[in-house]
């Protein structure tokens, strides 16, 4: 029996999810002030011993590459060695990986999120917009699916089965049929409830649109997912590209007649690297 969910029910049932890591909001709020951001970031990270341990472990492996005896135990030293922007990236990915894992999502969900986050970051270089915002948009773009799987696992499986039986079916139509709402709408409601920035909310809401609004963060998220699916980075049989928005290409200044080999190679290699580190 299909559900006919109302928007108000999404937030009520979001209590079934683990607490959203507020460190994500706090990092995005302090991006513009490098000096204030460093102390604030260290304080934020040190509030959570699990994240602190994971960040130090990743920083240690990255800096020393396992080739020396030196061991990083102090966040100040970690920041001074790997740099603030790298640490910010690690904290964002570690926090959201922990959230995804505690929500009970399978590894394929997180691998796809990482790949779209990396692709959005790489496209943000071309479009000259924030790498950190692009990463967060990519990591969170399918957050509505995480809610669906956690709160209504049976209907979530039915969407998957519908897609397998009719591969030309649009996933949004299948979700609306079984849930009454699609994952982009649910993602928008969750991101709003978690007080994420308006630009991140818009990217989550519009990433599947055939004709999304002309906005750089929406564009990197929309095209990031299209590129990840076109490259079939997760190497499964369900990858599909339905829309590639001309507006999104124009907003970022992308002309597909240029040579994209290096960009695609970079996205594939970085996705593999980060999936290994953050899974």
């Amino acid at each position, binding site marked *: 029996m299909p559900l006919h969910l109302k928007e108000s029910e999404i937030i009520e049932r979001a209590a079934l999810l683990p607490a959203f890591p507020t460190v994500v909001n706090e990092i995005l709020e302090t991006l513009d002030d490098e000096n204030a951001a460093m102390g604030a970031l260290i304080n934020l990270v040190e509030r959570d011993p699990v994240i602190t341990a994971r960040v130090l472990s990743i920083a240690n492996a*990255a*800096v*020393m*590459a396992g*080739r020396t005896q030196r061991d990083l135990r102090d966040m100040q030293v970690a920041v001074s*060695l*790997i*740099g603030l*922007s*790298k640490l910010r990236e690690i904290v964002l990915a570690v926090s959201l990986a922990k959230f995804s894992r505690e929500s009970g999502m399978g590894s394929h969900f997180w691998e796809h999120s990482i790949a779209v986050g990396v692709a959005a970051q790489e496209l943000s270089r071309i479009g000259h917009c924030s790498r950190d915002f692009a990463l967060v948009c990519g990591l969170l773009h399918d957050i509505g699916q995480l809610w669906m799987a956690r709160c209504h696992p049976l209907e979530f499986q039915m969407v998957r089965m519908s897609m397998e039986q009719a*591969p*030309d079916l*649009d996933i949004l139509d299948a979700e609306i049929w079984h849930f009454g709402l699609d994952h982009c709408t649910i993602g928008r409601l969750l991101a709003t409830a978690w007080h994420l920035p308006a630009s991140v909310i818009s990217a989550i809401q519009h990433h599947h649109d055939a004709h999304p609004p002309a906005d750089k963060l929406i564009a990197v998220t929309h095209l990031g997912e*299209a*590129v990840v*699916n*076109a*490259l*079939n980075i997760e190497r499964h049989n369900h*990858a*599909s*590209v*339905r*829309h*590639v*928005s*001309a507006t*999104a*290409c124009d907003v970022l200044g992308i*002309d*597909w*007649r240029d040579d*994209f*080999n*290096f960009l*695609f*190679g*970079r996205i*594939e*290699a*970085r996705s*593999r*690297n*980060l999936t*290994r580190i953050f899974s």
Partner: protein
Amino acid sequence: MKQRLRYLPLNELVEGMVLGASLTIAEHGVTNFALPAGHVLTEDNLCQIARRGGEFACVAEEDQRSEEDRAAEQVAHAAQLQRIFANADKERPAVAGLYAAVLAYRSL
């Protein structure tokens, strides 16, 4: 023998590999580490790349595939792309552009 380019994450790079493209690592827009195309990676290079936050490199390798193997791979890549883009309107320039760009990349 022909060369082929491969893009490998840091943990798959090993001493003796030859860079297929220059490797540059920048922070705040300033390049702080660079190696030219054709450079043979050393153990010390790999440590430096890791220490500076490098995540990948493009390496050139001898392409040991036969012409037949190469052609068969091309056909397989094209078939996979057809399936991935089966629900997209390839008459649209943006769709056709991404399709062609990925096909060119898979032809490396």
